[in-house]
């Protein structure tokens, strides 16, 4: 499994209008949508947000399998959250009582309602976040982050880390394959030793590569700050997307209240 399969985002090949929307617009909207999701209460707004975000992500040409694979963990977490709320809130009428060996599991109406709300909030939040990440190229995200005064050092660090995660992951997979060929990872004890060695080798190679990278960056004119891509003006479709999103959010809030 390669790092690209884990991250699985090849937005440079996607020319859908939703992918082409300016990153600054999406970054401006993202916190608002997430806050609306947290503050809305009830289940309607979260449900509408989930359906809209998932629909738009699929409309943008993101493979269905990739999207649903990404939603697996949040969905499991949502189910756990639902269950905990159903068990920890003891208001309203009793819906179900399960006598287990030592304890009684009792589900109250309010607990189930709050659990469903929380579960939908989690799914809505993750759907919105996935729409953003699966339809926004990294360069756009970084440009947007710079526009919104995120410290340059943080952006530079994120960019370098992102760049090297792919390289080091490939290296890690190669090291693990070599360790397996030499009878590493055969039993529990050997696995522990193999993982430690793998981590140690990654650190050693990173150290050497950091020196080489710094020299290469200096040769290319690096003097402490990475060059930023020039900011382009907002287009009509960006403004249209922003207005539509704000209107939709207002409509959802109204429906929710």
């Amino acid at each position, binding site marked *: 499994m390669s790092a690209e399969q884990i*991250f699985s985002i090849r937005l440079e090949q996607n020319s859908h209008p939703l992918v082409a929307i300016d990153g600054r617009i999406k970054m401006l909207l993202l*916190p608002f949508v*997430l*806050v609306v999701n*947290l503050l809305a209460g009830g289940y309607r707004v*979260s449900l509408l947000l989930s359906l809209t975000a998932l629909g738009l992500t699929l409309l943008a040409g993101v493979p269905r399998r990739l999207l649903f694979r*990404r*939603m697996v*963990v*949040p969905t*499991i*977490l949502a*189910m*756990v*959250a639902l*269950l*905990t709320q159903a068990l*920890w*809130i*003891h208001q309203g009428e009793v819906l179900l009582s*399960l006598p287990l060996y030592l304890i009684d*599991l009792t589900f109250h109406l309010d607990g189930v309602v709050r659990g469903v709300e*929380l579960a939908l909030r*989690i*799914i809505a*939040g*993750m759907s919105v*976040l996935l729409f*953003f990440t699966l339809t926004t190229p990294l360069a756009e995200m970084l440009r947007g982050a710079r526009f919104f005064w995120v*410290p340059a*050092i*943080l952006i*530079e*660090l*994120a960019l*370098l*880390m*992102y760049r*090297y*995660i792919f*390289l*080091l*992951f490939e290296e*890690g997979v190669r090291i693990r394959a070599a360790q397996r060929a030499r009878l590493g990872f055969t039993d*529990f004890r050997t*696995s*522990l030793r193999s*993982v*430690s*060695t793998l*981590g140690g*080798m*990654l*650190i050693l190679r*990173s*150290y050497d590569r*950091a020196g080489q*990278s*710094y020299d290469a960056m200096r040769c290319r004119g690096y003097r*402490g700050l990475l060059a930023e891509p020039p900011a382009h003006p907002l287009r009509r479709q960006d403004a249209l997307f922003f207005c539509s999103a704000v209107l939709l959010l207002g409509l959802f809030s109204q429906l929710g209240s």
Partner: protein
Amino acid sequence: MRRVRVLSLLSLALFWASPAFAMHISEGILPLNWALFWGGVVLPFVAFGIWRIRQWRKTDPAIFPLIALFGAAVFVFSCFPIPVPIAGSTSHPAGTALTAILLGPSVSVVIALVALLLQALFLAHGGLTTLGGNLFSMGLLGSFCGMAAFWVGRKMGLRLFWSGFVAGMISDLATYFGTALQLALALHGDESIVAVFTRIYLAFMPTQIPLSLLEGVVIGGLLVYIERHRPDILLKLKVIRQERS
């Protein structure tokens, strides 16, 4: 009766599943007031970490790619599964103790911030409104507790492996302490916060105690590997002193 059994099994399965994914609190779980609170708590530490990196870069310009590469290496390392015998599954090391030992806890907080952001954005682990909460438990508690444990271990004269072992273990347990605290504060419902916190923390334990021990062994082993093959790295980063190399 059959329905009861199925539901009981389902509940157990869900409770069993929770520790495996709970290291990062998912988007939407924390209410806005708690999300803002945890964000406010970590902000000064992030600011201090950024300031520290800036100062470090002034004196040693080559340190910046090194920080990024170590951050990437720990991120990648944390993607490789290690077997958890009691849970019968695999898990992955958190790695914050390692960055704290190699680069210092304040720099480790910034690396954890970037790692959590990348994980939230690209792997759907964690979230943006829960970034402050996750950074508090993993970045802040994980790094500072891990580093403190390592420092105490070295002061007590423990060997590098054992100091790394204690740091990895404490860092892992502290991370889950933070996560359990945040979940209890946000989701306790009608139950008392202490009761819910205890329940969540205890629910983590069956997988977390073996995992923290494993993380300790892996970090200890990793440090010993570096010491054997390239002690100059540990000397440069002031993890060990000259006479010990």
